[in-house]
């Protein structure tokens, strides 16, 4: 089946999305939820609970998006390689050069 590269990409995308969303939900809900308890510690001269909600979580969101971009671009590059390989393997008539033109 020529669709397998696509199926694999989508499975990995969904896995990545799930992990990133769990991180996002964890930080944004747990941070404020336990803010009162966290406030008994200090970070950078702030009460910790306040710092998480005012600065920490924002930086974490940014980091999650950067990881998302980095990983998705890696997955998509891998998909392109796999898909090109599948096309070569499945090249039915002798139209070989077709796959070679895809390299950027």
């Amino acid at each position, binding site marked *: 089946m*020529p669709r397998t590269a*696509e199926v694999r*990409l*989508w499975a990995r*995308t*969904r896995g990545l*999305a799930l992990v*990133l*969303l769990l991180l*996002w939900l964890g930080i*944004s*809900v747990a*941070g*404020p*939820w336990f*803010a*009162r308890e966290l*406030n008994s510690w200090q970070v*950078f*001269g*702030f*009460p910790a*609970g*306040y*710092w998480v*909600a*005012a*600065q920490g*979580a*924002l*930086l974490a*969101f*940014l980091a*999650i*998006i*950067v990881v*998302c*971009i980095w990983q*998705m*671009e890696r997955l*998509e590059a891998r*998909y*392109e390689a796999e*898909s*090109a390989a599948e*096309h070569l393997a499945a090249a039915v008539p002798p139209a070989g050069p077709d796959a070679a033109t*895809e390299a950027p």
Partner: protein
Amino acid sequence: MIGRRYGLFLLGFAALIGAMALAEHKGLPRTWIGAVFLLVTVALYAGIGFLCRTSDEAEYFVAGRKVPAMYNGLATAADWMSAASFIGTAGVLYLQGFAGLAYILGWTGGYVLLAVLLAPYLRRFGQYTVPDFLGARYGGLAPRMVGALAAVAVSFVYLVVQIYGVGLIASHLTGFGFDLGIFVGLGGVLVCSFLGGMRAVTWTQVAQYMVLILAYLVPLTWLSVQQTGSLLPALSHGTQLMQIAKRETELSRDPAELDVARRQRQLADQYELKLRDVRSVMAADAQRLTRQIEALRAQRAPLVQVQRAEREYLHRPRTEAQARLRYQQELERARAHALPLAGMPAQAQPFAGGDPQGDAASAARYRSERNNFVALMLCLMMGTAAMPHVLTRFFTTRSAREARRSVAWSLLFITLLYLAAPTLAVMVKYEVLNHVVGLPFDQLPQWVTRWSRLDANLLSVRDLNGDGLLQLGELHLGADIIVLAAPEIGGLPYWVSCLVAAGGLAAALSTADGLLLTIANSLSHDIYFRLFNPGANAVSRVIASKMLVMVVALLAALMAALRLTDILQFVSAAFSLAAAAFFPALVMGIFWRRANRAGAVAGMVAGLGVCLAYMALNLPIARSLLGVTLPLAQTQWWGVDAIAAGVFAVPLGLLVLVVVSLATAAPGAEVRALVDRLRVPERPAS
């Protein structure tokens, strides 16, 4: 090329600031400085709009799909940050402390949802609008129409507020009337959207972001240097927070403050009595005021006192409804000021209204505040990821990959401002608690007089205990002036105030531009042409959209001129509505092949319905309009406020979408092919 142009723009703007600083030093009158800032910035935006004029369809609707990721990020940031973000957020943080951070978290966390779930896939789909996607993915007219109507409704409420903000700032900057201010600002908006559509709006927004971020960071850094000697406000934030905490403990034990609080409670009781018989109290008040003026004149009291009494007489309520509203406001203000620290919770204390270790009522208040914080934050996040005017911005990049990258740029630029907002709130509070509270009344700084004369709802002081000193409990500061007055509160020169106002104007105008375009495009592209004129060519589509831009802008300006003050309630509500209408249908459209038309329409309608019903039952303004008398305890679920209705509506809409989809036939092969196409990069496919 683009970089050099914006570099020149920044240099020019810096030169303008420098020239104004010099002009103030040389003694140019204040109104001139304000007017120059207003007119030059609006002219610059209009100039960019004029240079980018176009009638080409792809240029008009999606800026030709060639905006680089970073510039789309800048434009999205300006599009996103509205007058409310710029002016309001720091004010809310000043007044509500930790509770205000729900907005900061909600308005940034939503971008994670955009990057992971939506932006790249919508870009890969192509086309021009969000309803386009709903229409193609689910087929038929209904999903597109529900989507277009929801987009118009949500964006229109938001647009009216922006234009209201434009009027407020323009009149503050120049002393023009509010209405004239609206129309000057509107001129700037219209030149962009009308002549050049998305293309002009994009490139103007990039410039507007630069103006607004400078306008926020310059006074903040200045205050930080002044207060702590540090050039990094984000770090001095912590030190000042600790200073405030100390001062808060002192003030909450101060005998004079406690005395003022007691007097505020008495005042509140008086207003409660007044509210029982508004009509006769009105007459009595008017009589009392005239007698007071006569007495003052007879005593040859200082002119200031006579004028103050006369102003009070002139501004007395004229109708019973006005009087009732006024007394109600006074009652609420007195009640708030009767609490410790004038009703402001300790800045760094989360959910300060209750105590988990306290008695049952106190622990319940703590839990309810915590639930509301999380609920509001989640609504704002899902709403952020579903606001049509933001989603359209991701149609303008070159590729899906660029769209994903531009989400990161957007959040980076947005985070700069949202890291600054709590910091500014803390610096202003430090200034007020340490340098304003305790001043003798006859030595109050000039900004106190100026703002209280402008509008007593924004600022008022009153020596309740007659000791001649200002107590915190005697000072009322409205949320809307914290940012605008921050430079004056910190004693910075007047040109900084003008810079801040110009930044607020940039924030309001850029958001208004994006919204206006979204509304006009939904009406023309998604409703008019699908329903009435499907065969129209590209040119007439663009012309129709331009005409609608004019009509919608005028309508919104008329609405804003009514000055509906309660409209702010609707803004937060707009996020819940956007989340309920779009979020499940968009995400499931991409991530669940089995979702079909019946499911999507049912889900959207159910989500919107739940949202609207919850608001009708719980939003104070809707309750009084509809005559809802059931106590809030019975109409609220888990004590969650009406503005966070989305936290129930989204899961419910999702559930309905899934159940109805499963109960009806699966979508056809065509739709499945479309979804498959969205999920993989376009290049190497067969």
